[in-house]
Structure formats: C-alpha cells, structure tokens
C-alpha cells in the first residue's frame, strides 16, 4: 500500500494554539450555529486540532510548537505525510481584516523536525501582493516549503482575478504547485467566486502550473470534474468531506477517468475516520492507493 498523504491540513497541526481566536469573529460565530454546530458543547468549543476554548472565541494565539505530538497523530492514523498550510482568511463582509493569518515562520521552524513528513504550504494575501510574494519566495527558497494554499473566496477574489495572477507567475517561477478552495464555503462568504469553472482561465494561461482545487467543488461537482478531466495541470481534493457523503458522480469519476487526479485530504477532520471512509468506498484498491497518497506525491513532485 502506498503511504497516505494528507494534501489539506494546516499549521495548527504542529501548533494547536494558532487556532482558536478566529472563532471570535462573526463568520466563525455563524458557522458554529450551522456547518460547525457539532464543535460546541456546554459553552465550550474544541477546535479541529484539539484546543478547548470558550465558545465566544475570546482566546489568545499561542504559537508553541509540538512537532512530536503531530507526528504521533500521523502515526496513530496511519499517515505518512501531511501539508501544513498557512492559511490567510479575510473577513469580507464583517470585519474587513485578516481573521486567520497562520504564520509561515512557525511552520518553517517545524519542518526540520518532520523527517520529510511535514510539507510546508505558504499562504497568500491577494490584497498585499508584493509583500505576500516576498514571503512565498522566502518560504520556498529558504525554508523548503513545497506548496502554496490560498483562500481567495474570503477576500471575495475569484481564482481568475487579476490579483491572483502574480501568485501563479511566482509559483511557476519557483516550481511549486498552488491550491485553493472551490465550491461553496462553510463560512458565510461570497460563494460565486468558488465556481470551479473560473479556474479555466488560470489553467489555460498557466499551462505548466499545477493547480489543486480543494474541497470537491460542491455544489458544482460537474464543473469540478470537467476541469480535472480537461486540463492536464488541474487536480482536485476531497478534503473537508467524509468519503461516505461524497457526490456519487465524483466517486464514479474518481474510480475511472480521474483516478490520477483526485487527492485525499483531511482538512483537519478526524484523521483516522477520513482515511477509513476512503478505504471503505466501493472503488478499486489501485484507485484507493492513488487517491490516498500517490496522486499527492505526484502533484507535489515528490514521486
């Protein structure tokens, strides 16, 4: 069996205290009453990385690293490697500032302790292009990051927006792939910019750039599958969903035309359960191997 690779996890896996303060903002407060409802119990909330905080999110950031604990989690869940993405989220409707800004510096410190099992993913702020590109460049060239993950919809920015193009050019220059969320957003954020078909321009304008459309593209699964099928450089991941709830059309494509293109990711969900649910899918064993690890290794240029 090919090792399991999680293409979609975040910096708080190695520093759980980075997560928490985002819950004080309206977007997250709305989400704990909707898509994240299950996180709250008796006025307390447990983040995806196991930090228990008051449900109002009034808590400080704590960048303390615990890499051995993260590696132990990977071992327990049977993962070989994972990305650590330094997400930046802008509050589009409510606060008009960054409400998540996980620092590349923390991940940079973690990487040397990871025995190659931790994959740095830099972030990008399309409202501050020059500063952001300088950070991406340092992260890749000096700190060994292998990926850039962006959350453009929190900025109200579409993947084919002019403010994203400098990043794509920089990624081609540095030889690293880029990923971003498509589909609806669990938070109340502008969702029209999540349409997978908007990636079409990017795939054509940057034919040598490897692109990961994260989170299945639901509710536009058809557009997501079309993009992966048509463009040699476009990949997609099923992170943020338990496999048992995936769109059946996606599962069918995953086992056939797109068995080389669809990747596995946890998005911080229960690591063991997300893996087991993929293993339980009614698809070929060879497909499971590809989806759970091999495709991500190819996408990242590790295989």
């Amino acid at each position, binding site marked *: 069996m090919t090792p399991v690779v999680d293409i979609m996890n975040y910096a708080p896996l190695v520093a759980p205290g980075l997560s928490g303060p985002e819950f004080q903002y309206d977007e997250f407060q709305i989400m704990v009453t909707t898509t994240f409802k299950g996180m709250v119990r008796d006025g307390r909330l447990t983040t995806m990385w196991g930090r228990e905080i008051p449900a109002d999110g009034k808590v400080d950031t704590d960048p303390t690293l615990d890499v051995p604990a993260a590696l132990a989690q990977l071992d327990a869940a049977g993962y070989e490697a994972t990305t650590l993405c330094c997400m930046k989220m802008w509050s589009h409707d409510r606060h008009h500032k960054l409400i998540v800004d996980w620092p590349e510096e923390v991940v940079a410190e973690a990487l040397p302790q990871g025995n190659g099992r931790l994959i740095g993913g830099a972030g990008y702020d399309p409202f501050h*292009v*020059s500063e952001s*590109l*300088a950070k991406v460049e340092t992260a890749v060239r000096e700190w060994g990051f292998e990926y850039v993950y962006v959350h453009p919809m929190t900025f109200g920015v579409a993947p*084919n*927006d*002019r*403010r*994203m*193009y*400098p990043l*794509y*050019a*920089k990624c*081609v*220059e540095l030889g690293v792939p880029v990923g971003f969320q498509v589909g609806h957003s669990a938070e109340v954020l502008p969702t029209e910019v999540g349409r997978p078909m908007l990636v079409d*321009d990017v795939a054509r*304008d*940057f034919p*040598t750039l490897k692109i990961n459309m994260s989170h299945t593209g639901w509710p536009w699964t058809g557009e997501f599958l079309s993009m992966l099928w048509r463009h040699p450089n476009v990949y997609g991941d099923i992170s943020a969903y338990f496999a048992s709830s995936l769109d059946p059309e996606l599962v069918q494509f995953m086992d056939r035309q797109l068995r080389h293109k669809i990747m596995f990711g946890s998005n911080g969900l229960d690591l063991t359960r997300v893996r087991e649910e993929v293993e339980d899918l009614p698809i070929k064993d060879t497909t499971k191997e590809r989806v759970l690890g091999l495709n991500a290794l190819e996408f990242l240029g590790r295989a």
Partner: protein
Amino acid sequence: MTTLPGDAPVGIIDPFVVLNHPDLPEVPMPREALRDDESLAAWPASDIVGHLFKKDDATRARYDTSRDIDAFVANLDASSIARAGVPLAPDTPDDVFDRLAALDGRVFVTLRANPHDGMRGIRRLDELCDRYPMIRSISLTPFQLHPTIPPNSKEYYPIYAKCVERELAVFVNVGFPGPRVPAWTQDPMHLDEVCWFFPDLTVVMRHGGLPWVDVCEQMLLRWPNLYYATTAIAPRYYPEVIVRLASKRGADKVIFAGYWPLLPYERVFTELSALDIAPEALPKLLAGNAERAFRLDVLDGARP
C-alpha cells in the same frame, strides 16, 4: 530666456530614443488587429502610420543614423543628450544588448513586453534583467496587442508584480494610437486602478494621452509614483495642462522626451525653449524626474 540645449542647466535625459539597428526584430502590429485595406497593404512595415508623418530627406537621414549604433551615439553627443533610453524587444540579439551595455550607462533600455506571452515573457524578462541592469523599465503598448486588453487586465498583473520586485518602472503608451485599431484600451484611466493596487510601482505614461490629458493631469496629482513623458508630441503641441503642470504643481511629474528620429532635436529644442516653463522646473523636466522614475542611479557601474 533659456535657449536649449546650450543653456540646459543639467545633462539632458531622453528616455525614449528609437534605435533602428538592422539586427533588431521588427515589432509589427499583429496583422489580425488590422481591418482596412490601406493598413493591411502596408503591413508589416511601420508605414502603417506613414500617413501621420512627413517623409522628407531630413527624416530619411535621421532614420539612416538610427540604424547604426556608433552614429546613434554620435547623434546623442551632437544633440547634447547625456543619457538616452532605448526601447528594445525581448528577442533583440544579445550582440545589440552587449554593445549598448558597453556604453557604460550612456544608454538605458526600456524592454518591450507582451502580456499575452504569459510565463515565457516573464522568464525572458527575468533573464534579461539579470544580465543587463541597464534595463530600467518595461514598455507596454495596449493597442498593439491582439486581442487588445487594457492595462488593468489580469494578464498584466504578473508583469507589475515583477517590476515591483525588480524595481523597474512600467512605461505605458496612453492616448489614441496612430494605427487604425481600437483606442479604448489606451485610456489612461485604466492606470488609476494599477497605481492604487501597486503603490510601490512606478508608472510612466507616454505618447500624450490625447484626448484624455485632463485624466492624466488628475492622476499625476493624486498618485505619487505616476509620471508623464512627452514622447510623440512636438513641444509646440504639448497640451496646455502639461506645460502648466511641468512649471508648477506637477514639476516633479513631467519627463521630457524628444521622439527622435521622428522629430529632429533642433526643432524640439527650439520649440521647447519657447515654452513658458519656470526656470527652476527645467532641471526636473530635463533630467531629475527621469532619473528618479527610472532609478538611473543604478546605471553607475551598470556594466554586466
């Protein structure tokens, strides 16, 4: 009254002097952009705009001069031009770059870029700028693109980010173009958004901006890193607002350019001397603003 160039208070810088060396690649309009028979018949020659310019013996002689690098430099000497900016295409042979680089900063380069070239264009830009620090700006001409796209389009944004990273100016053609192609992408208003989004980017408008000179004026007053170069217009036709700006409120924002070989320097300097420009603004117009906008201090010790 100041009589130019003899009374020039500084060494004159002209950031847009055209070299027509025979080894240079032709930069024709894309044929697909042309529709009328006259333009199609003239293609690919630059004669597409022949109807706009005189073709007398003196003009032909200047063009002959512009074909030879030694004669070109001798003409700069004879015309009291201390430093000249030369537009070059990215597929210019190395030999021409090398010969210009050997002039020790006498000549700097504005490198033409086509935003439709995507990453191929960006890689070439990086490679040339690594080798030739005398490249001080990237030249963009929206009307020459097919399809034509305005300067706030996504295809340009990687070029702008690269210019900020490398501290290069962008030198953008604005105003109605000579060739008979659509003009709307040449509206300088498109640069307003670029100046806002890239506050560290230096933008120099060239070729007049007509009929949108008032837009140019307003933008020059509001964006600290935006400049206006007087290419393509003889001084006696400089828009009134530009002459006024160059003297007063915009004295730090207007850059003299002569448009040789199309216009003879004798005529340009005679007409320029007759303009009502404040004496204290003259050194800025003739050199200081260009030095700052194109960061010409880099040229000192610019040999590769």
